[in-house]
């Protein structure tokens, strides 16, 4: 696929006309959460996993941070997010603590699933975060149902549902998006099109050029955005959310990006042409946004180092606590299969 098939970049020196650019506070938030995501996942994949402190599979969203952050940063508390396995930013913005996340990865009792499940399989209804199951695209019909409940009860709430390009090949994608479209429920479907599904490149996944092209078949708008441009994602998501709130039904947003890692920590991505990594490295969403912010004076000289220091401190503290957190008791295995009062 032609990686240049994306709209002009909003940053740097972008041409996207933002309807109304976000306030400075939001800009700072975007940078913080993207950088926090990156460092958190770096620690998980390159430190804790390699030190054997995390067992099983580890998936990160390096290079894709702008998508969850851009789409979620302005969500209202009562809105609901259904993230995929590359959307760490969504958990952070929703307010899941770093300690809870590290404890989850290290299989501790204090983790989001109390050791029952691992890695990104985290959720918390108090944070309006609905966890995914590994079965790709299963969360799409569920998001339709979340939106349906808002519609039935006349609530001013929206659901954001994330998934990868590969997930759109599953029947549940079709069933979920179609039903959401027919019932005009307030859901925004956001595809992280990182151009690979494990080793499978996009052209082996679908015969259309863009995931967004599929929207037409469901009678809903489909929009392609530069997924490495946090402002472009933010802008598209804001419009789709407004549409959903206005009772006009779902939108499908395709965020073009690139998976800057293997599929998981054990995969060296030998099947990905090296030039693609180099090309997309230049489009790194964090570096681009840092440049944009410093050029505009939103961030003072030295401001970035300040943020890095803060993030490192927060992460160090959280790891220290989580590492001392207890593992679950073996007997916990038997708990919570059913309601226990």
């Amino acid at each position, binding site marked *: 696929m032609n990686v240049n098939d994306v709209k002009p970049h909003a940053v740097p020196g972008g041409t996207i006309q933002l309807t109304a650019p976000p306030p400075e506070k939001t800009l700072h938030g975007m940078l913080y959460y993207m950088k926090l995501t990156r460092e958190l996942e770096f620690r998980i994949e390159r430190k804790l996993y390699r030190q054997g402190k995390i067992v099983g*599979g580890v998936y990160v969203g390096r290079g894709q941070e702008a998508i969850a952050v851009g789409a979620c940063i302005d969500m209202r508390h009562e809105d609901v997010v259904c993230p995929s396995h590359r959307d760490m930013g969504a958990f952070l913005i929703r307010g899941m603590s770093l300690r809870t996340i590290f404890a989850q990865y290290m*299989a501790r009792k204090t983790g989001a699933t109390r050791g029952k499940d691992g890695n990104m399989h985290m959720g918390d209804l108090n944070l309006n975060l609905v966890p995914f199951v590994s079965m790709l695209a299963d969360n799409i019909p569920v998001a339709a149902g979340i939106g349906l409940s808002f519609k039935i009860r006349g609530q001013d709430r929206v659901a954001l549902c994330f998934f990868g390009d590969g997930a759109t090949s599953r029947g549940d994608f079709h069933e979920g998006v179609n039903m959401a479209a027919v019932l005009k429920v307030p859901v925004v479907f956001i595809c992280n099109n990182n151009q690979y599904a494990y080793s499978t490149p996009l052209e082996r996944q679908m015969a259309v050029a863009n995931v967004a092209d599929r929207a037409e078949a469901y009678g809903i708008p489909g929009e392609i955005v530069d997924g490495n441009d946090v402002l472009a994602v933010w802008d598209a998501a804001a419009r789709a959310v407004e549409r959903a709130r206005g009772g006009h039904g779902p939108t499908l947003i395709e965020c073009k990006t690139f998976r800057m890692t293997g599929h998981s920590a054990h995969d060296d991505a030998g099947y990905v042409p090296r030039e693609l990594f180099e090309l997309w490295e230049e489009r790194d969403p964090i570096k681009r946004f840092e440049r944009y912010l410093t050029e505009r004076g939103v961030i003072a000289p030295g401001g970035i180092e300040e943020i890095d220091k803060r993030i490192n401190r927060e992460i160090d503290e959280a790891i220290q606590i989580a590492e001392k957190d207890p593992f679950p008791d073996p007997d916990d295995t038997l708990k919570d299969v059913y309601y226990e009062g």
Partner: protein
Amino acid sequence: MALTTYVEAIRQGIWEEMEKDERVFVLGEDVGIYGGAFKVTAGMLERFGEWRIIDTPISESAIVGAAIGAALMGMRPIAEMQFADFISCAFDQITNFAAKSRYRWGAGVPIVVRAPSGGGVHGGPFHSQNPEMYYVHTPGLKVVCPSTAYDAKGLIKAAIRDPDPVIYFEHKFLYRRIKEELPADDFVVPIGKAAIRRHGTDISVITYGAMVYTALDAARQLEKEGIDLEVLDLRSLLPFDREAVLDTVKKTNKVILLHEDTRIGGFAGELASVISEEAFEYLDGPIRRITAPDTPVPYSPPLEEFFLPKVSDVIRVARELYAY
């Protein structure tokens, strides 16, 4: 001679059948360039080309459905599920289209659905399941669960040659842990035949899959106490070797049914019924089950350790039964 791992044995079995029979082909996610998530199809793309090792979209239902269609047209497809957990996404095609075809209109569906299953690999609830019983409960299917490299190879060949749909559960924990010397000649392991892995006189442990090794470890330890276990590996669950089950019960008169799958609706329940219906008078003690508890497979190591049946469980139950 070189030792062949369980995973390599599956690969060899598929490879040899593909060399011999051009109707055989593989389809699944990441099976081509990548050689499969567990490398079962490594090197096959180069040898057989992209129309016999087919990388598909993430579409389990379409993978199995397409296998069925091709099988009806005379081909011998092998559909790979990346993990057995995701076979649920193809449930309908397997249990309705494939399983009922011959019965309804006489058309056999000779497909193989390969499903890497089982726990002990820190996979959590969605990468550790043992979903065999959904399929054992579906007349028209065959279900096999090899435990050795020899069986892995012999059963994949038998499955490919079988005129009916076979669900082939390969245990992930065994992939690289189990190896043995394999004969050079072309051999199959017939579907529906059990194997005695250890001859004994006191108690029979009837099991399958990775639990065969749990039983054998327990047997080695119990030997020192003078308790002599017989270990029967079912190898196939549907059809299963009723005769071998009854024979071992009649020989030892005491029986432990062991599986990694959860308890209610697990295969042990079926075995217990058959034993009590057909060999009740031979029993000198209660039929005992050792299974996982009725919960999802948990992720955290202490929980997963608790969940999986252990050597110590077999030893404890065997002692109780021995004293009975």
